[in-house]
């Protein structure tokens, strides 16, 4: 008969069950997030703050678009390209999105190899990510040039609401700045990985602190965030 009674899983000593336990864990000694380093915590909180910036930009854009009394230019048409005699809507944006999403893949692989302390592969994959990012910014520059040639300005455009150009240049410009900063940091950190700074714990030029491979992951957090923001911009600005 004894085997029918189920053994209740015993909590390790000192733990409190239920909601109180969650609160106690959060409030516990020394660190609120037990396995999170300072740098990673800082990046997460920064990204939270940055989320609010992009949300405000996107909400402002939506307000402008919903309250405008003149027609909003059709993004499918504006961002169409003629390739090989065919008129393909949104093709450039589709390629740009594909490239940026791919760069998240190479970034994730770089993080993986970083934790395996594989210097060469990590650096190569980070450089590949940076190259994807630079390509993205390059295509954005092409897109800007094309629109400017067609007469789109921050203060007006030939097809309708002036806010179309304002929002387009502001939001893609701000996102493009994020990508550009990301590319610069990717190259800088790839250089450090390549040189083996994190194996010999060489000190940083500015901070004079030792570096660790974790910085690759922190860089990755930023990069994935920038990609995720693009998905929202793509959905709300181009697909709407």
């Amino acid at each position: 008969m004894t085997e029918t009674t189920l053994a209740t899983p015993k909590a390790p000593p000192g733990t409190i069950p239920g909601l109180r336990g969650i609160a106690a864990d959060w409030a516990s000694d020394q660190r609120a997030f037990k396995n999170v380093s300072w740098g990673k915590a800082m990046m997460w909180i920064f990204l939270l703050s940055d989320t609010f910036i992009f949300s405000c930009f996107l909400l402002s854009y939506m307000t402008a678009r919903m309250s405008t009394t003149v027609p909003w230019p059709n993004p499918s048409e504006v961002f169409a390209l003629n390739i090989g005699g065919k008129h393909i809507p949104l093709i450039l944006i589709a390629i740009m999105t594909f490239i940026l999403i791919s760069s998240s893949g190479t970034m994730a692989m770089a993080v993986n190899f970083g934790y395996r302390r594989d210097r060469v592969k990590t650096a190569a994959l980070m450089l590949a990510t940076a190259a994807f990012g630079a390509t993205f910014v390059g295509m954005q520059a092409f897109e800007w040039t094309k629109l400017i040639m067609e007469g789109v300005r921050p203060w007006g455009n030939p097809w309708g609401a002036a806010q179309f150009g304002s929002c387009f240049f502001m939001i893609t410009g701000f996102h493009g700045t994020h990508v550009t900063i990301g590319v610069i940091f990717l190259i800088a950190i790839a250089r450090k990985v390549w040189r083996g700074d994190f194996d010999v714990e060489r000190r940083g030029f500015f901070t004079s602190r030792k570096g660790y491979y974790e910085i690759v992951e922190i860089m990755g957090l930023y990069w994935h965030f920038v990609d995720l923001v693009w998905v929202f911009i793509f959905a709300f600005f181009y697909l709407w």
Partner: protein
Amino acid sequence: MVDIPFDEVAGVPPAEVGEVELYHPHSWWTRYVFSQDAKVIAVQYSITAMSIGMVALVLSWMMRLQLGFPGTFSFIDANQYLQFITMHGMIMVIYLLTALFLGGFGNYLIPLMVGARDMVFPYVNMLSYWVYLLAVLVLAATFFVPGGPTGAGWTLYPPQAILSGTPGQDWGIVLMLASLILFIIGFTMGGLNYVVTVLQARTRGMTLMRMPLTVWGIFTATVMALLAFPALFVASVMLLLDRLLGTSFFMPTLVEMGQLTKYGGGSPILFQHLFWFFGHPEVYIVALPAFGIISDLISTHARKNIFGYRMMVWAIVAIGALSFVVWAHHMYVSGMHPYFGFFFATTTLIIAIPTAIKVYNWVLTLWRGDIHLTVPMLFALGFIITFVNGGLTGLFLGNVVVDVPLSDTMFVVAHFHMVMGIAPIMAVFGGIYHWYPKVTGRMLNDALGHFHFWVTFIGAYAVFFPMHYLGLLGMPRRYHDIGETAFVPASAHDLNAFMSVAALIVGFAQIVFLFNLVWSLVKGKEAGGNPWRATSLEWQTPETPPGHGNWGKELPVVYRWAYDYSVPGAARDFIPQNEPPARVAAQGAHP
């Protein structure tokens, strides 16, 4: 990593991470100017904030001179008056209070109070100060550019903020917005440091629920600032684009000086939403650190534990969360939907609950306490009175129907000066009198301190109490000269003159305070390590002022909360947070 054992008796777990090596300065420049030490950065922040605050003080004198004696001073014309109110408001709210509470008190107190050697990223912390200084310099530069600073009011509402009828349209508004953007960038670098230090870099035994309420207040305010400043950032960028590139985010089709402008299709209300999504949390960004500081001052100087510590913490967190859903109560007269106003009136009044909990708990802490009427305590009591005063008028303004007739009158000015002007400044003064001995090793002069308190407290009431009455009469705010109006009786002008004289006197009392700060640095009484016999960690440092790395060889271990005052059976009327239980028991046995 050193092997640190579990403290069985006190239940303090071993260290989870090894110590991070500090940055060691190697020259005068890296020690005192480009310093990465949070304590030096705190002093730099405080001095910069107080210097620009002096400018704001002089501006308030100018405004009061004009309001009290209209037509007497030829050097204050209508344009300048608008510029003065704008810069006074902007400097006081953002460049003085926010910077002083978070950059000044936050930098000094957070690492010391949680038992850390420094902020987690000292280099970023240093950058934060230098970007802040740049923001202040850009702001100050607007006084010297052609056209002078902007006169758009501290809320910078478009369309008028960037149209040619408003003073400072050429340069003032552009530099103002640039300065705000810089401030936000600088603050973000500091703010990330404060939050991560509180969350991840506490010493052994320092659980979140053992932190002094000052840290809780600054921490919550910083989290709020990190989420609220983005809205101001976005609003500033968009307004800057409207002004410089001719976009129309906030600009409707309108006529300027008889000419149709090139703008069209934008929404001025959008700016108001963005601005107040920042602006309302901003009120609590300066109030929450004040709440925390006041809690600690009252507990220490009444020699009694804070009443309802847990409730105090939850009230701070609840106020922080609620303050993000009340912003549109600043916009009742913007023509928004009445149901929208109803929602925001409800949330606004709900904030009264956690706030009232805090006030009751302060009063209950004082109840039967061993109250020492020291200067910090006087300022703490002054805070409670002015804050309750301003909070009660907030109930008037929070209700839509009562707010509508009171909108844009002096009643509003009196309300927010009481609740987020005088009250937080009282906390700033209380905090400075309280922690100055730790920062410098010397006490501030007591007689000058008493003089400063009584003149400031009574003077502030002399200025702002009659202002409520003027507001009820219908005297509008932001008017250069109300002239002869039917609804403002002649006696109101006498009252205005009285308030102006009081304001001048209060201003001079602040100069006495600044003199005290400098004089006591040299001539003040030696303070010793713990002059107020306080329990929290910053008073237990091996050196005063605390040295580089704060704690000497070993980090302190925390065994108790920060409010063990007048514990029955203990040898002294306070038990420091880092005093092991065994030693307390031994002292209790042999008194």
